[in-house]
């Protein structure tokens, strides 16, 4: 063969509109998996800033600023409470928590689906089980919004 033309891989993502259920499930599973790993490290990093709480390290905060501190005015709280309170007071953090739940729930449900696929159960219904896990994720996420957003808009 003298010459040939390599059409490359780009078309794979260019034709996302034509992806089937199984393909979307795979993409979402990878995506949520990486998100959860990212969350894990962020989680460790953020909480490590509050390690001093075990030694009784405290900071002075305005109680009004933090949703988890009672009272008024300048109060002395331990560093862990201050860190968490500072985070929970932010709207974006609450939003991200909802997102985290959605990601985790989808990853769990699709993981169960993949477990079934690995066991050879219901392979004909793999697309339906993907849609079911999507819908369930949606329902659980929406149901969680009031709980997560309490105090910041709800």
């Amino acid at each position, binding site marked *: 063969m003298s010459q040939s033309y390599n059409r490359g891989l780009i078309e794979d993502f260019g*034709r996302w509109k034509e992806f089937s259920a199984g393909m979307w499930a795979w993409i979402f599973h990878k995506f949520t998996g990486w998100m959860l790993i990212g969350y894990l490290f962020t989680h460790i990093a953020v909480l490590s800033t509050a390690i001093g709480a075990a030694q009784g390290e405290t900071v002075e905060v305005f109680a009004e600023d933090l949703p988890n501190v009672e009272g008024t005015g300048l109060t002395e709280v331990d560093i862990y409470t201050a860190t968490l309170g500072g985070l929970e007071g932010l709207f974006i953090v609450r939003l991200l928590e909802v997102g985290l739940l959605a990601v985790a729930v989808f990853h769990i449900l699709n993981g169960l689906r993949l477990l079934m696929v690995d066991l050879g159960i219901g392979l004909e219904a793999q697309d339906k089980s993907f849609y079911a896990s999507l819908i369930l994720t949606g329902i659980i996420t929406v149901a969680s919004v009031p709980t997560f957003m309490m105090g910041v808009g709800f």
Partner: protein
Amino acid sequence: MSTQQQEPETQEAPEDPEMKGAESPQQRRLKEKEQGLADEESVDESDLEGETVHIKVFRYDPEVEDKQEPRFDDFHVPFEKGMTVLDAVMYARDEYDSSLTFRHSCRQAVCGSDAFFVNGTQRLGCKTQISDLEQPVRIEPLPHQEVVKDLVVDMDHFYDQMHAVEPYFQQEDLPEGDLEEQRQSRENREKVKMSTRCIWCAACMSSCNIAAGDNEYLGPAAINKAYRFAMDEREDEEIKEHRLRILEQEHGVWRCQTQFSCTEVCPKDIPLTEHIQELKREAVKKNLKFW
């Protein structure tokens, strides 16, 4: 459940239709067929009869200066009832541009030469009705394979992978006696039935996202081929183990990430993912030891 043997297909036994005054299965089937034909006609006549079909065909030829840069050519092919994608490109070749190149042979989904990328899906040209497709019909060579010319792709790699799993029956001990046969049980035949239908069209391999990124991955077709022999009870246990040793390698069954792309595109409806998953379980079982 794929671990269990498939239920043998039972034939519908007519239960004295005259006695009950009900129609026989054949009558029912004929009626359904007529109904189906009538439906099809109405669709065709209203939409396409007497019209032309707009097809866009991928063109590339390294030996012709104008075609060294890949492009799409438009053809307007007069529609005929029952026209397939293959019929359309053949018409275009015969009537408009004799340099249009593609592989085809039997035209009845047996030879597996005319797998194209039609409207974004790997399909067999001779098995795809043009009336089922949205127009313009975009016809491209199979993705993830080198294009040699127009719709012709280089199949060498695919064939290499197919041969890598030793796709032939291997049995040393033959039954004694000249006229003895190597019999296969009905149940076992049912089990491998679907896997024997592979026509080597490479549609699955082309649709597989993993095979696209990992050139060493055996690919769904080759694994299915291996399944056909690994599950055949007539072969000895050692040969099955030998087959599993090939499959359980890094680029064997474990590369499959169950996207079901291959199962979706297979023109012969082979449950490829199911077969791959079953071989994964076999590979685990072979290596699992409880001591």
